[in-house]
Every structure is written in structure tokens, then in C-alpha cells.
């Protein structure tokens, strides 16, 4: 699967733009603020119906315009599919696939899969767990629609439960309200955790493989650090590495989740919010068996980030669906060796869109990029 055509209308600084893309590497170069990232951002709208740059819908519309549109044609094994997304300020976002309006925006997710890599991501192994959870969630949501539903239900149930805990008073009715939201939390939350755990070995294997390709000898692995102890009660010390198959079972996760919530029930009622659950979990990144976050050098973090992002792309591509890798200004963050390895691995993988303030320096890329575009003040010219 790859994106053959991209159309923008009143999107950021583009009044109208239509691009024919290459199925491998597409490079967009030009000065800062010329509109390179906006092209990647438009692709993210076709994939997940929102900006992966983190902007609100209304910020994306061209200055003075009441909305915007993004369209694209996706080539895969079957017939080409055409996606159109329209946003009108103060309200609606509509998506059509092959001319058919989608009842729910979430039905779009997964048609076009993307992995987004920007300079902030080079700190993903150093910062807090939220960024790593986001990486896992964004990956899983694109390949597993029930996960997307479970996650959004979980977030909803979590907010409801926190509100119920905040209003909690020591009486039967109040307790019963908390109980029914606990039940929802466990139902959706255990599905979230079980799905994450099922995906983890594949992800960890891919990350480890890419780490070796980029950096040679060091062993990079992933470990799920759950706020619900999945190994507890099975005897022995906490398990290292991915948990055994038994832990992947949703029912077992649910049981452990319930135990953990019961154990910390008093604390939750005192504090007025939920203290255990997948919203507090972490994806630990280990370099040669040690948690990278606590000791890694800047170079080690950057290499690990590349391996994680390439691993993400590999997981998104697991069933041969194909993935579009979006690399936003990433070369500026990396030395030539790492940049070269990244571009080569990405280019060999499938379609990629890359932005850079300078044309691809000689030697960074093994082969010629398949398509190169010069971007300047909202004008995009294929070289």
C-alpha cells in the first residue's frame, strides 16, 4: 500500500496543491516555514483523521478560510482507493472512501498506515512514559480496530471513574457508582493491556533487528512495565522480558487488574483518581539488559529512537499491508552515519516522505531518492 496522489485545499499555506508521489523515497527540501511539514501533516489526516503534528483541526485551515480538505489515492493489491477528508470550522469533519461517506471517523484508521518520526522523537527513550505509550497506542490503533475501540472506551471509563472517585463519599450508593465504573475500566483496560502484550514480542524483535543494523553489537529489547503486576501470584521473581503466553490472556489480565484495584482501593478513594491501569504503564527500552532511560548517552538514545521507529514501521507492515514513513526534519538531528542508515532502511522498506532544509547530501543516501521536491513559500516543484 502506498499513497500515489496527495491533494490539499486551503491546508496551512497551500490554497491548492496536487502531488504525484513515488512509491519509495520522496524528499521535500526547502527553507524553514516553507510548508514541508504541512505535506506530512496532510498525510497524517488521511491516515488517522487528525494532525500527528499535534495541531487542532481549526489551526490547520489556511488563514481566513472556513475549512480545509485533504484527498489522496492509495494504491494496494486491490483497486486503488480514494480518500477525501473535509473539515468545516466550528464543527464537522467528514471522510469519504471511494465516494462513500464513513459513519465514524475511526473507520478511516488503518486504511493508510503511517509512522511519523520528528526531532522530538529522538528523546523518546529518555523522557517520561507518556511518549512511549503513545507510540504503542498509535501503532496498535492502526493495525487493530478493536484495540482502537477498547482504548477510546478505556479513556472514557477512566475519566468517568475518576469523576466518581472524586465525588465519592463513604455510603452504599457512592460505592456502587464507583464499582460499576471499575467494572468498565477492567473490561476495556484488560483488552488494552492484553493486546499490547501480544504485540510486544514482534515489536521487540523488530527493534532489536534494526538496532543491530544501525549500531552493530548492542542488544536493544523492549519490556512492558505494567502498573498491574502480571507475574504476581505465579511464584518466583518478576519475569524478565516479554511475559509468558499465560499473561497474554485477557481474563488473567482482568483478574490481576481487579486485584490491584482492590488493593489500592482506599488510596484511590482518598486521592480521588485511578492509580493503576494501562494509562500508567510504560514500555521500557533496555540496552544490553539495562533500562536505557537511566544511563544512555545522547548517541545511544538517538540510535534507539531510530530502531524504535523502524520497529514501529515493521509492526505496522506485519501483514504486508504496507506503511508510509513520515520523516520530519530528522536528518538535522542525526549524524551522517545514522542518517544514512535510517534513510537506506526506510527507503528499502516502502514509501517514505522526508523533509529536510537542504537537498540530500551526497553519500547520505546509497541510491538516488525516487522523487525530490523543492518547497518554497507554498510552491512545490518536482526536481
Amino acid at each position, binding site marked *: 500500500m502506498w499513497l500515489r496522489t496527495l491533494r490539499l485545499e486551503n491546508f496551512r499555506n497551500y490554497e491548492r496543491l496536487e502531488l504525484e508521489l513515488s512509491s519509495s523515497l520522496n524528499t521535500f527540501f526547502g527553507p524553514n516555514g516553507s510548508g514541508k511539514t504541512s505535506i506530512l501533516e496532510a498525510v497524517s489526516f488521511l491516515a488517522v483523521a487528525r494532525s500527528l503534528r499535534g495541531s487542532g483541526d481549526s489551526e490547520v485551515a489556511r488563514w481566513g478560510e472556513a475549512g480545509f480538505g485533504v484527498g489522496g489515492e492509495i494504491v494496494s493489491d486491490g483497486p486503488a482507493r480514494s480518500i477525501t477528508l473535509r473539515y468545516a470550522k466550528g464543527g464537522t469533519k467528514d471522510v469519504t472512501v471511494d465516494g462513500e461517506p464513513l459513519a465514524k471517523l475511526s473507520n478511516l484508521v488503518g486504511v493508510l498506515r503511517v509512522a511519523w518520526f520528528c526531532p522530538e522523537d529522538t528523546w523518546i527513550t529518555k523522557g517520561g512514559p507518556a511518549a512511549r505509550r503513545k507510540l504503542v497506542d498509535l501503532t496498535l490503533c492502526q493495525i487493530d480496530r478493536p484495540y482502537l475501540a477498547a482504548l477510546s472506551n478505556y479513556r472514557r471509563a477512566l475519566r468517568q471513574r475518576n469523576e466518581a472517585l472524586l465525588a465519592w463519599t463513604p455510603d452504599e450508593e457512592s460505592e*456502587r457508582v464507583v464499582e460499576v*465504573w471499575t467494572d*468498565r475500566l477492567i*473490561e476495556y483496560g484488560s483488552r488494552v493491556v492484553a493486546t499490547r502484550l501480544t504485540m510486544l514480542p514482534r515489536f521487540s524483535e523488530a527493534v532489536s533487528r534494526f538496532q543491530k543494523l544501525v549500531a552493530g553489537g548492542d542488544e536493544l529489547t523492549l519490556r512492558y512495565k505494567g502498573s498491574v503486576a502480571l507475574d504476581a501470584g505465579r511464584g518466583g521473581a518478576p519475569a524478565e522480558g516479554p511475559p509468558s503466553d499465560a499473561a497474554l490472556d485477557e481474563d488473567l489480565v482482568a483478574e490481576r487488574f481487579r486485584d490491584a484495584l482492590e488493593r489500592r482501593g482506599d488510596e484511590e478513594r482518598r486521592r480521588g483518581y485511578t492509580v493503576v491501569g494501562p494509562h500508567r504503564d510504560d514500555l521500557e527500552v533496555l540496552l544490553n539488559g539495562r533500562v536505557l532511560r537511566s544511563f544512555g548517552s545522547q548517541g545511544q538514545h538517538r540510535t534507539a529512537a531510530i530502531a524504535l521507529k523502524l520497529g514501529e514501521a515493521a509492526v505496522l507492515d506485519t501483514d504486508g499491508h504496507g506503511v508510509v514513513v513520515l520523516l520530519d526534519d530528522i536528518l538535522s538531528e542525526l549524524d551522517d552515519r545514522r542518517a544514512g542508515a535510517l534513510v537506506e532502511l526506510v527507503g528499502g522498506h516502502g514509501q517514505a516522505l522526508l523533509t529536510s532544509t537542504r537537498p540530500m547530501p551526497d553519500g547520505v543516501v546509497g541510491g538516488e531518492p525516487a522523487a525530490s521536491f523543492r518547497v518554497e513559500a507554498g510552491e512545490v516543484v518536482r526536481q
Partner: protein
Amino acid sequence: MISLPPALERLVQMLSRLPGIGRKSATRIALRLLDGSEAECRELARSIVEARERTRRCSICGGLTEDDPCAICTDVRRDERLVCAVERSSDILALERTGRFRGRYHVLGGLLSPLDGIGPENLRIDLLLERTRSGNLSEIILALNPTAEGEATALYVAKLLAPLGVQVTRLASGLPVGGDLDLADELTLGTAIEERREL
């Protein structure tokens, strides 16, 4: 920018408060009303006021009615021991369209949602319990949406009903009738597998 004459502007503002009607639609409706005859406008205004004045909630089920108790609650051909609990009175209309349900109804008037400040005391749960205690009910069907709020409310009600010895059921979820397995989304199909039944 030219603004609308004051009276017309007021009408547009009133209309745009209605659900699903934005300013654009409100303006179109208002202009269409002005194009019509004065009699037509009076008729519309009168029917709004009349509907408001005559319609009330049934004191038993909470459904909309002109006569209290409502036609469903007084229909002796319907099974009074079988009660279907719904979120809103509009859900009664949907279930009645099926023609399959011959019991009575109970409108809860919403779903539990701490985020919106809706607790048990804001719903007609007490009245359902009272009905169950005094009415010798055999089964209560909880016909609530399969959302987080719907499921939480169903569980809440079920917990309170449990000691009363009434059978509590909920609507099945699964494949649409006449649907194609190929076209069902993973969630619906997954639920259909979980909730499969013996032939």
C-alpha cells in the same frame, strides 16, 4: 455585513438552538416560513405550544403521553410482568417499531455519567425498583446502548435488582440481520462470536 431584520434574527437564533440545526439551516427554515402564508405560521406556532402543553410523562413508565397513565401502561393485552428499561422515551418508539415486544416500558431518563454530573438520583431508578417490588415482575430487559455509560448503568441497575428476585436480561449485540459476515466490522463480529448461542 447586512444583518437580518430584528424579528427575523430572533427567529433564526431560536431555531438554531434546536438540535442538529446550525445558523445556516436556521436561516433557511426562517426564510421558508416567511415565504409561506401567515396561517401556516400560526398553525406551526400553535402546534408547538399545544404539544408542549398537552404532552406529559406517564407517571408509571416515564414515556411521553397525553393521558396518564399512557396507552402502553393501560393496555391489558400487554404483559405487565415483563418490563423493558430504556434510556429515553424515543427508544420506546424504536422498540415499538419492531412489533416484537409485548411487555411494558420504563424510561430511565438518561445514563450514569459522573462527568456530566448525572448520578443515580437523577435517573428514574428508584421508580423502577418500586415497580419491581410492588408489581410482581418476572423479567426486566435492560435495553441500553452498548457504550461505556450504557453498560455501567445496566450493571448499576442490575446490582440493585438482584436481591429482588426478578430475572434481569439485556439486549444481545451481534450481526445485523441480513448482513454479510465479510462486511461486519471486527468489533461486531467479535461480540457475535462471544455471545454465540446454541442451535
